[in-house]
Each structure stands twice: as C-alpha cells, then as structure tokens.
C-alpha cells in the first residue's frame, strides 16, 4: 500500500510528522485503515477457534455418518445413516429418556432452591451483605468440580455425615423408606438416582442463581408495592407480577442446568447407579467399545435438544437476562 506519498503532513502542520521506521509506518497504516487493524486483531482468535473448535465439531459430525463394522470392529468411512438408526434401539432410547428426565427434574429443583437466594440478594441485600451474597455464590461456582462431587461422596456414603445426622434425629426410618422405593432408591444414597439428582442440583445451582438474580434486579420495587396496594396477597403478587418478570432469567439459568446435565458423565459415574446417562454412553462408546461413530451420533442428541431449547429460550427473551 502506498502510504508515504499521500500523507498530508506538509499541508496540515497541526499534525506531527510520523515517527518513521517500521513502527511509524504500521501505526499510520492502522490509523488510516482501521479495517487492516481489525482484520489483524480478529485473525488469530478466529483462526484458532475456527480451526481448533469448529474444525473439531465438523470432524465429530463427519464421524457420526460413518459406521462400525460389527465383525472386524473397524470404522467404515462411508456415508451412512445406520449409526443414527442405532440410536433408536430400545436401550439407547432409554438412555436418552433417562438423561432428559433427569435434566428436567434438576432444572426444576434448581429453580426452587435458587429463587429465594436470588430474590433476597436482588431485593434485600445491600452494601456489605450484597458483596457477601455475591461471593457466596461465586465461590461455590468456581471451586473445583471434582472436589464438590467428592464432598458429596463423603456426605452420602453409608457411614457418612447424613446417615449420622438422621440417626441423631431418629429419622433413619425416613431414609430407609426412601431407599426401598423402586427407581429412586438403592443400597445407599451414593449409589442411587436420588444421590445423582442431589449432586447435579448442587453443582449447577450457582448457574441458576446468577441469571435469576440479574432478572429480579431489573424488577422495580414499586411494582411489587403497587401490586399489594391493589389488594393482591403475597402469593398473588408472586404468581402474577414477580414470576412472569423473572421468567426470562429462569429460562436463561435453565439453559445452563439443562445443557450441563445432558452432557455430564462424571457425576452419574461416581454417584449413581450402573444405568447409563448420555455422557456415559458417549464415553464408553468411544473408549472401551471403540465405536466412535455411535459416540458421535450420541453427542448430536444434546446438540439437537439444546438447539431447540435455545430457539425457544430466545423467543422468550432469555438472552437479554444473561
């Protein structure tokens, strides 16, 4: 690019002469052609994410259209929809259904636990308390995922603190009655769906609190007052005023709780039964079974579910609450 020739140095004395050299030339180039600078700034991140990440996603997608030769165990690199057909076998449908049900239950429970915390933090906590609430939510969010799971293994173990506490309260019969139930029960809480459920709720809870709190902070306090001035009971105010206004935040939080539960394979492996979730199915298909095409097809399930979910959430205005 011919820069030096067209420089307006001489005609505009208010502008200092360029500092010269490579640095000056570059600096002038960026000033005169912001697009060059923009391109240079965008190129590394876009190349990195485009090649490493999007490239890998396409590699994964491509694999899901391959199939595995059932006799030799080798991967046949030819386009086929057979692997997707395998997803609809009863055992695999079972896994998908189980995971989606768990994700839905975890999301509902997270809303129930998160709402009071978010509401208090948004509406009543001020100054020092506000900072305390913020840190109180951020610290568990960022502390180690495995350590959190490990803590629950300690709590839910048969000889652990929960059993001890219930024994002290003479409530052990409640635990025994619950564990003898067919689907949710088991030998102890750490090998039951109930345990898996509790840990999921615990680990993803901060992801629900933050967007709900953000949504509630935008609700003007006088709306609540107006509602009660007009004779609504606290319950009616909650149902007709607060909840609809907080809904985008709840949907935004549910994107995290739902998506994270769909993809997790470590929690159900450490605390749970031997019945698989999608994440575990993916892991075992690509690892021990060596069936990468089926594993790839399995990962497409959460992507499709989340695609629909995000589309619905966008229509509800959830992204403004993020």
């Amino acid at each position, binding site marked *: 690019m011919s820069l030096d020739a067209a420089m307006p140095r001489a005609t505009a004395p208010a502008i200092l002469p360029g500092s010269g050299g490579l640095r000056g030339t570059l600096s002038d180039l960026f000033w005169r052609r912001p697009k060059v600078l923009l391109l240079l700034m965008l190129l*590394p991140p876009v190349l*990195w994410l485009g090649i*490493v990440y999007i490239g890998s996603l396409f590699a994964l997608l491509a694999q899901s259209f391959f199939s595995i030769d059932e006799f030799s165990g080798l991967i046949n690199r030819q386009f086929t929809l057979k692997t997707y057909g395998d997803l609809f076998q009863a055992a695999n449908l079972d896994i998908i259904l189980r995971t989606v049900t768990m994700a839905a239950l975890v999301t509902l429970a997270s809303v129930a636990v998160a709402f009071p915390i978010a509401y208090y933090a948004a509406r009543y906590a001020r*100054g020092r308390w506000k900072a305390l609430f*913020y840190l109180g939510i951020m610290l568990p969010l960022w502390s180690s995922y495995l350590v959190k799971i490990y803590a629950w293994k300690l709590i839910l173990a048969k000889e*652990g603190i929960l059993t001890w506490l219930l024994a002290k309260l003479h409530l052990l019969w409640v635990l025994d009655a619950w564990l003898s139930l067919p689907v949710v029960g088991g030998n102890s809480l750490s090998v039951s769906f109930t345990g898996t459920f509790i840990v999921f709720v615990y680990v993803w809870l901060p992801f629900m609190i933050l967007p709900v709190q953000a949504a509630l902070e935008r609700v003007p306090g006088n709306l609540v007052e107006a509602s009660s001035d007009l004779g609504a009971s606290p319950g009616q105010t909650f149902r007709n005023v607060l909840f609809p206004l907080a809904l985008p935040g709840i949907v935004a939080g549910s994107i995290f709780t739902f998506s994270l539960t769909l993809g997790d394979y470590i929690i159900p492996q450490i605390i749970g039964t031997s019945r698989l979730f999608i994440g575990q199915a993916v892991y075992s298909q690509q690892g021990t079974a060596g069936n990468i095409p089926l594993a790839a097809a399995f990962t497409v399930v959460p992507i499709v579910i989340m695609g629909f979910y995000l589309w619905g959430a966008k229509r509800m205005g959830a992204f403004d609450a993020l």
Partner: protein
Amino acid sequence: MRSDGSQSAPLGLKVAAACGLLFLHLPILLIFVYAFTTEEKSFVWPPPGLTTQWFAVTWNRPDVWQALSLSVRVAAISTAIALILGTLCSAAVSRTKFFGRETISLLVILPIALPGIITGIALRSAFSLADIPFSFWTIVLGHATFCVVVVYNNAVARFRRTSGSMIEASMDLGADGFQTFRHVVLPNIATALLAGGMLAFALSFDEVIVTTFTAGQQQTLPIWMLEELIRPRQRPVTNVVAMVVVLVTLLPILAAYYLTRDGDQIAGSGK
C-alpha cells in the same frame, strides 16, 4: 440483617435464602475436616480422631507432584494463549461494528455453552482423523479454546466502560497507535485482563471433562483425582489434595473479585 430501611425481608425468605447458602457451602467445608481424619478405609463421620500426618504423606507422593506440575504448566500456557486471543477478540468486537460481529461473540462463547463432553470428543475425533498423537500440547489446545471466553468476557465488560474519547485524545496529543496502546489502553484494561487471566487459570487448573479426551495417558491433577474417586487407593491423600485444591482455587477467585468489583460484576457469569 440490614435492609433497605424501607422494609425487611419476610422470615420465610430469610430462612430459605440462608438454607440455600448453607447448602452451597457446608459440603466444601466438610472437606477441611476430612483432611485431618485418622480413618483410612472409609468415610466415617464423625472422624474417630484428628491428625496432620496425611499432609506429610501427601508431600512425599511423587505422583501428586507430577500431576500438579503438569496442571500448572498446562494452565499457565493456556492462560497465556487465552489472554492474547481473548484480548484481541474483545478489542475488535467492542471498538468497531462490523458484519459478523454477533457470530464472533457466539464463536467465542460456544466452547463453554456446549457441554464439555462435546468439546472433548470433537477434539479427540479431530486428533484421530488427523493422526495427531496425544501430548502436552493436545491438552493445551483444548484448554486454551474454552479459556478464551473468560478473558473475553472480562475484557469486553471493561472496554464497554472505557470511553473511546480517551484513545482519540491520546492520538490528538500526538501519540502513535503503539504509544496509545501502551500508555492509555493497557493501563485501563490491565486489571480486567489480570482478573480474566486468573479465572482462566482456575478454569484450566480444574478442568477434567475435556482433559480426559485430550490427555491420553498423562495425568493432570483433576485426572489424578478422578482416578482416585473411581478406584480409591489411599483416601486420606485424596482428602488432603482436595483441601489443597479448594484453597488454591479460592485465591484467584477472591483476587479476581477484588480486581473487578467496582461496577462490572461479570467476572464469572460466562463460565
């Protein structure tokens, strides 16, 4: 509890919020007690006795040190890469409006929005298609990809608060682009970058789901812990490591909070 002055929270709400916060924090505190227990074989509560001998035992375990050193090296390099890429991307997105700007934001957020297992298996299948053997760098490749978003979020929030007229003023006063960057832009975004870098470090240091797919036979500290959780060999050592991990991740989070607290409370919202 101090309230707005206008009204105080209903008792039920206070209790529910307090119980929720206790639910979030008590399990982590429990780890600290278990690190001192004398019991070796089970998770029995209350601990039969307290001892500090497991700290010495853990200190002398070479496998823990190796895993720790790999984790620190991976986290340091991933953070460095994420800092460069995240800053460039946030500067471009917040300074200019251009076609495809929303797509770029989506591209940065995607690795963390999709479940980790998808990122993990996608990388693994790419490695296998391209015949790339597992190494230190395959771990870094995965980690840097999802760390970019943390730096990006922090830097974008700061750029939004930094007024563009400062840059114009600097240019008017005769500074060239590099001087402006060095003396005006950088001091303004430095704390946001530091905070983003710390969070990226914490994120990488703790990551296990993607790592299981990109590490091959190497053990980072989280992978070491995962092995111990699935096939426990020496529970007291795991307890001590868990406690140390909690303390080590606590510090960058607190530091990041203090660095970004005036105004933008966005530090972790994108994790």
